């Protein structure tokens, strides 16, 4: 049975925070912890397809959301995923007041820094989950 933690971002397309959510989730699953985590297309989950539900139903999931609508968290919960941690991009962004992070198309240097910071938080949570600490 695949026990990798599912890291699912909102990938919001209207503001840079959606791109930060997307890139931090992808950095985690591709670069930081590929052996312990993977992602699932949120758009596939939204379809409600049986196969999409089976990918996350009952699995430990970490969601990453770029705005207060919490699309990733809500959709993963609706599809039966166990949301172990809801990462809110804005919580990290507000610690970097006055910085410009880029656009919904491309991150600039500060956007990359915040992405790295959030990816590190996600990775920490995954390691804690694997050690049974969460």
């Amino acid at each position: 049975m695949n026990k990798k933690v599912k890291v699912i971002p909102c990938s919001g397309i209207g503001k840079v925070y959606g791109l930060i959510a997307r890139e931090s989730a992808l950095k985690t699953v591709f670069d930081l912890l590929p052996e312990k985590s993977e992602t699932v297309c949120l758009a596939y989950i939204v379809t409600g397809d049986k196969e999409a539900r089976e990918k996350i139903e009952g699995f430990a999931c970490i969601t990453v959301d770029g705005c207060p609508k919490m699309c990733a968290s809500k959709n993963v919960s609706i599809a039966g995923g166990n949301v172990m941690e809801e990462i809110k991009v804005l919580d990290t962004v507000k610690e970097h007041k006055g910085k410009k992070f880029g656009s919904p198309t491309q991150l600039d240097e500060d956007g990359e820094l915040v992405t790295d910071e959030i990816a590190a938080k996600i990775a920490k949570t995954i390691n804690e989950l694997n050690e049974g600490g969460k």
Partner: protein
Amino acid sequence: MDELKVGIISCSGEECLGGTISRLATRKVLEELKMISTVTLCLPLYLAGGEEERNFANVYPTLAVDGCDKLCAKRSTEKYSGKINGSIDVSSIIGKENALNTKTVRNKDLTAEHIAMAEEVASEIVKMISNLPPDSYSGKTFHGCACGS
């Protein structure tokens, strides 16, 4: 007179390159197309949002841009919002092998070749927009995506 606006919904899939290309091509059209106004909505808002978001495809002539042949944006828009006016399957433009590439997904890993793929898909979106009948605009109002788009 109401301004013609066209809605574009991208799958933005996270598992493969096709999703990244769908997102980049959609952003390119939103940012650069000047002839006709375009507007988008974050796809997962169909369930996470309210009536306003679910009314999107009833308000705008809407195109779906999907990274692979699962066609999640097309099917979800039709399931939750309304009939769409056109659909693009990125894998039919850049090839299935490219679209389903699961190694290169992050923006920072993209090469000039990938950017060219996004530009090709953006051109297809613009072609599809130019073929929409001008009377497809319903004249209703929509207050935009909660995330600011």
